Each structure stands twice: as structure tokens, then as C-alpha cells.
């Protein structure tokens, strides 16, 4: 096993987006809570913010367990109620995602009272695993998250 410094890695970018049939205020109300994903995301079993900090304190760390028992830690890097966006990075993960930074952004669709939701990230992965990990993040986390929010909010499936 080579040291991290000599491991060959590739940069991967993943972006998924959708339109939800709900106002941006209602969608933001649900997804804004950095510790709230265990209430709606099917992959997340339970989540807590370390040191009992408030979940909207930029810099706070969420420690959460997936349904398969693995544990991850993520840090809140940005939170904006004005722009309805947040970003976070992975600190610890059993999956080989390095330098993972993700952005969640909501935009109002003004001619329909609906919401455009974009979820994207960049990360490094060992060479050869790019496709597998990009698909894991894009499908199992982002797209599954969109569907889970639809069901959580009682919206029609896409």
C-alpha cells in the first residue's frame, strides 16, 4: 500500500439537479438543518452535531451513521439564508473520497412557485474507482435525497 502522497488519484465532479413542486421557503425549511438529514435521507440512520453545537453554526461537525453501520463526519463550511445554499466537506469516511466538498443550492422558479435544487461536489478518488464512486454519490446520495425530500414533503414523484 503506497503512502497517500504517492497514491494515484483523479478529480471527480458530480452534479445532480431537479425541480421540486414546492416554494423555495418550504424546501429550505426542511433541508437547512445540517443535522436534519437522518429525518429524511434513507441512507442516514442517525446523526448528531459534535460538542452540542447548534446545527447552523458554521464550522460545526455532524457525525452520522449510515444504515450499514459505517460512520462519517462532515463539517459545515458555508450556510446562507439569503442565498439558500450550504456547503460542507467530509472529514472522515470509510469510502475513499478525498478532499470532498459539496454544495447544495436552491433557486426559486419565479414563474411557477417551484424550486430548482442543485447538489454538486468535487473530490479525489483512487484511479479506477472514479465511475463507481461518482455514481454512488450521484445516485445513492443526491438523487435518492431528491426523492426522499419529495416523499417527506408529500410531493409527487418526478
Amino acid at each position, binding site marked *: 500500500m503506497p503512502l497517500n502522497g504517492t497514491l494515484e488519484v483523479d478529480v471527480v465532479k458530480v*452534479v*445532480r*439537479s*431537479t*425541480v421540486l413542486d414546492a416554494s423555495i421557503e418550504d424546501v429550505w425549511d426542511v433541508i437547512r438543518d445540517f443535522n436534519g438529514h437522518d429525518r429524511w435521507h434513507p441512507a442516514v440512520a442517525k446523526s448528531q452535531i459534535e460538542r452540542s453545537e447548534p446545527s447552523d453554526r458554521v464550522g460545526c461537525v455532524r457525525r452520522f451513521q449510515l444504515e450499514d453501520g459505517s460512520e462519517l463526519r462532515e463539517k459545515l463550511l458555508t450556510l446562507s439564508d439569503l442565498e439558500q445554499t450550504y456547503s460542507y466537506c467530509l472529514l472522515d469516511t470509510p469510502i475513499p473520497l478525498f478532499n470532498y466538498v459539496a454544495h447544495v443550492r436552491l*433557486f*426559486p*422558479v*419565479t*414563474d*411557477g412557485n*417551484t424550486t*430548482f435544487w*442543485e447538489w454538486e461536489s468535487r473530490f479525489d478518488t483512487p484511479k479506477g474507482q472514479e465511475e463507481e464512486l461518482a455514481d454512488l454519490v450521484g445516485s445513492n446520495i443526491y*438523487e435518492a435525497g*431528491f426523492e426522499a425530500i419529495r416523499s417527506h414533503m408529500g410531493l409527487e414523484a*418526478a
Partner: protein
Amino acid sequence: MARIYVSSVINASAENVWERIRDFNALPRWHPRIADSRIEEAAPSDKVGCIRNFNLQNGDNIREQLLGLSDYDMYYTYSILDSPMPLSEYIATIRLTPITDGSRCFAEWSAEFACDPADEEQLVNGIGADVFQGGFDALKRHFGG
């Protein structure tokens, strides 16, 4: 500064919509309120800094300068140099973003400008409805939704 923000979902890929709106001289081909347009000094219409000189259906003449154009991010930004409207420092951006779960795209058109507070509401509503939403409605009709 007064602000306008209008956004919509168009039933076509971002690439196809971008192909229709990218040309800074193409307003008469896709926007129903524009009668004719030309680029001054015969510059190419994707030369940043070029000026489009166009007439509305009602006869008003407007000159606008291209400040930024990105084929990668699918947006362009422009300013108004001359117009009959009582405003100044007008800068606007039109932008397309793909929606990955279907062949649709998210379209945004926004502007900032200075004006007399007494004129603000009428300018914001007029430009927002007639120019921005009117343009998106025309694109939605063209692309079937």
C-alpha cells in the same frame, strides 16, 4: 439599486436553448418584442465588448454592450448604453443551467440598475414581465413547454 429576478424551467436541454439565445444579435429571432438588431462596427456578435443596436416593436431604440459571455457556464452579461427608459447603470445577466433529471433546463434573467425611486416599481415590473418573462414564454412556446 433596483433589482429584477425572473426564472423559469424550459422543456429542452440547456445546450439547445443556449444555441437559440447565445447570439447577442439574435433577439429578433427569439424575442417577440424585438423588431430588428445589428451589431455596431460589423463586429462578431460573440466579441466581448461588441454593441447591439436594436429596435423594439414599438419603435424604441436601445444600445447594449456585451460585457461577458461564457459557453462553459452558458450565460451572458450586458449593460444598457442608451435607451428611452429612465434608468442608469443597468447590468443584466441571462443564464442557463442543466436540470440533470430530465431534458429540461433552468433559466434565469436578472438585472440591477439605478433609477428615481418613483419610477422603480414600474421599471421592475415592466422589464421583468415584458422583457424577461416575455422572452422565457417565447422560448417555452418554441420548445413546447
